[in-house]
């Protein structure tokens, strides 16, 4: 099951040229770009690991793409996303976030039903991948 989180996730995967153009757009707007990765695809897993430090003073997309290549080399089978943070006063939040790398095989989620007192049922999504320990999931 293909993971759909963030911008462009219903489109085919972006090529490096398209990623470069998006990053260039972020830099033009003065947003700080950061690279994050994870192997826990749960939609509520908001805090991915950051690869390196946030890149506040990069002028050209080539710098970000160098870092992305390094991240892909280290984590070829992880989800990797690019975040663009807008630091202007009153905004101070992410403006753009999109996935740039995903595992070859995405097993998806199962639905778990917890039966409570009476006839109440609580639902949970559970990623098959997280059955294995961190780092061995994909």
């Amino acid at each position, binding site marked *: 099951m293909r993971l759909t989180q963030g911008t462009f996730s219903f489109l085919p995967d972006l090529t490096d040229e398209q990623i470069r153009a998006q990053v260039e757009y972020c830099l033009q707007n003065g947003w700080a770009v950061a690279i994050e990765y994870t192997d826990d695809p749960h939609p509520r897993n908001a805090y991915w690991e950051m690869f390196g430090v946030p890149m506040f003073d990069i*002028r050209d997309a080539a710098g970000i793409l160098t870092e992305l290549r390094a991240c892909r080399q280290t984590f070829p089978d992880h989800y990797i996303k690019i975040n663009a943070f807008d630091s202007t006063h009153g905004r101070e939040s992410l403006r753009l976030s999109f996935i740039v790398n995903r595992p070859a095989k995405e097993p998806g989620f199962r639905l778990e039903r917890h039966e409570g007192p009476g006839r109440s049922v609580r639902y949970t999504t559970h990623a098959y991948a997280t059955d294995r320990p961190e780092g061995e999931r994909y």
Partner: protein
Amino acid sequence: MNASLNHQQDAPLDLAAAFRDSHVGEVLDELDRDLVGLVPVKSRIRDIAALLLIDKLRRNLGLSAGAPSLHMSFSGNPGTGKTTVALRMAQILHRLGYVRKGHLTAVTRDDLVGQYIGHTAPKTREVLKRAMGGVLFIDEAYYLYRPENERDYGQEAIEILLQVMENQRDDLVVILAGYKNRMDTFFRSNPGMSSRIAHHIDFPDYSVDELVSISHLMLSQMQYRLSPAADAAFREYIERRKARPHFANARSVRNALDRARLRQASRLLNRGGQSVISRDDLVTLDVPDIKASRVFSEEGAS
């Protein structure tokens, strides 16, 4: 290949129009106007500009036009304009369309080399990332290599630099600068670095005439001028100063002018009785401001 070469001979191209459209002429004229002397530097920039223009035309016709390697090394005596030209180079290459952003990242050894094991590589990569799309200027590059300490981390920085200089040639231009003899030693002990730098440019010492025109340029930027007598005195000052040790070309001229401004200021303040001062007084450096220099008083000093 042969067929395509023949085919293109039919269509003549307007080189003059292409030259005009690229605004290369303006860049070169500006360079001529703002920088005195430096003939080898200017002619090399002219060559590079011409090559970039021709490459663009070739690419339009579908001929192969690989991005030329533009890494450079600037060597010369102190004050010959290495840093100034490097600052301009980023701008020039940007206007010629070779680098995308045209900013200059100036660093020295401290910015590249870390203090403990594993510190150097991230530090160097950080700097390289920041410089991408522009020019990375490494001042006094020979400090990167310390042959007397074989565990020095400078070598690690050099290796990362080399890798990026080779693989990401279209992402950034590296300029190394430093004094001539020490740069030569540096390149002798790092042949890999030397061979990856396409342009070794020597900055010659300035002649007295050139130094005088530099002083005029500096003064007009500072909105001062020399009285005619002071002009002659200043030429004499340069001739004498040039013969003395530790002469640093344009930097010495700048320092001399700064000291002359100091003397002019106190001369104006100590002028007894007169409390009225004209605009002319404020902008003119006069003979005593120049002649008070040590260079004149220590007659025959080494």
